[in-house]
């Protein structure tokens, strides 16, 4: 881990990988959308509406994945003072908030025709809404301090405390009666989803993950540059 602790070296490597990962993101998303929206069959129960799944489910996965990434980065920041960890966590937060909003909105659009309601306060929907507020709260807290170091530390603690919500979201559909159905893909006796629908779903999930990587690196680059500018200004002010 600490081989990449040098921000300059990290940026050099990231810079070289970025065009390739961007290309792969575009290709995967185009393929995923084509298979999801055109080349996959309609569902026996839900008909064409099932196509919302190809956006909704990967977005919800990303919402959890990005928050977990932020929590891991926060541990690394608090315990080992890894110099890139707080940059990564802060760069990831708005992307995670975006995916969470996407999951909530597409879920609402899907709920109306299938369940007969836009929104219910069941355990799954409510805990995801809390996740969305955690993202927003994190972003607000990090920027609420004059000293960026203190903002980073407060944010890291909030990210860790909020991490308790991630297993609650994941298992809410198993622990309590909910309107939301249980997991289809990750379950004990194999996915409850036909291969012709699983493949576009996984393609979209991969595409979203690559997209996250690309935007994360771009945002981290911006934040690292901003920090250098800040440091140079301080030096200048001293002279």
């Amino acid at each position, binding site marked *: 881990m600490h081989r990449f602790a040098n921000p300059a070296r990290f940026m050099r490597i990231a810079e070289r990988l970025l065009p390739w990962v961007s290309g792969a993101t575009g290709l995967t998303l185009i393929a995923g959308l084509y298979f999801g929206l055109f080349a996959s069959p309609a569902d*026996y129960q839900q008909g064409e509406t099932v196509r919302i799944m190809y956006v909704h489910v990967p977005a919800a996965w990303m919402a959890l994945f990005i928050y977990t990434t932020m929590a891991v980065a926060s541990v690394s920041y*608090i315990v080992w003072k890894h110099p890139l960890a707080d940059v990564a966590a802060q760069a990831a937060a708005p992307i995670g908030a975006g995916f969470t909003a996407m999951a909530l909105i597409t879920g609402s659009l899907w709920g109306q025709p299938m369940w007969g309601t836009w929104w219910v306060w069941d*355990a799954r929907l409510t805990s995801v809404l809390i996740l969305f507020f955690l993202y927003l709260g994190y972003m607000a807290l990090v920027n609420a301090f004059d000293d960026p170091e203190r903002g980073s530390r407060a944010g890291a603690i909030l990210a860790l405390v909020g*991490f308790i919500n991630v297993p609650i979201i994941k298992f809410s559909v198993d622990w309590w*009666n*909910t309107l939301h159905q249980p997991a*289809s893909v990750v379950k004990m006796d194999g996915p409850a989803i*036909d291969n012709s*629908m699983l493949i576009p779903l996984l393609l979209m999930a991969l595409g979203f993950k690559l997209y996250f990587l690309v935007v994360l690196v771009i945002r981290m680059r911006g934040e690292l540059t901003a920090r250098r500018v800040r440091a140079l200004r301080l030096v200048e002010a001293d002279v």
Partner: protein
Amino acid sequence: MTPKRRRLTIVFLGLLMLGSATALVLTAFEDNLVFFYSPTELETKNIGPDRRIRIGGLVEEESVGKQADGVTNTFRVTDLTKSVPVAFKGALPDLFREGQGIIAEGRFVKGVFQASEVLAKHDETYMPREVADALKKSGQWKGQGTE
């Protein structure tokens, strides 16, 4: 103990305590966290008659009918052990049919659950129609719905 180890221990213990606290709170509030009761739970939980609640289960086979007024749908909701009669005035969701999972909100009046809202619950199975038909034909069907 090095500062790193100390910080790691603090983070670990902090998360452990937070986790236990959350687990206790969630267990204590369990009854408020469930979105609906199944017909069997209704008997054991002893819910007062005038309380607005949600019940959930499958629409019992050959139980769907209409009352004489032509707009009130009647059916029974079952969890395959117990079942309760439900009356609902209004349009049912598209997915509503016998064998389908549903959630109804309302209250009991003289032993009949008077629903003010009926939501369809769909299961976690996704497959093309042809596959569903083939499974039904070969008798391997495990999903919802019987149509």
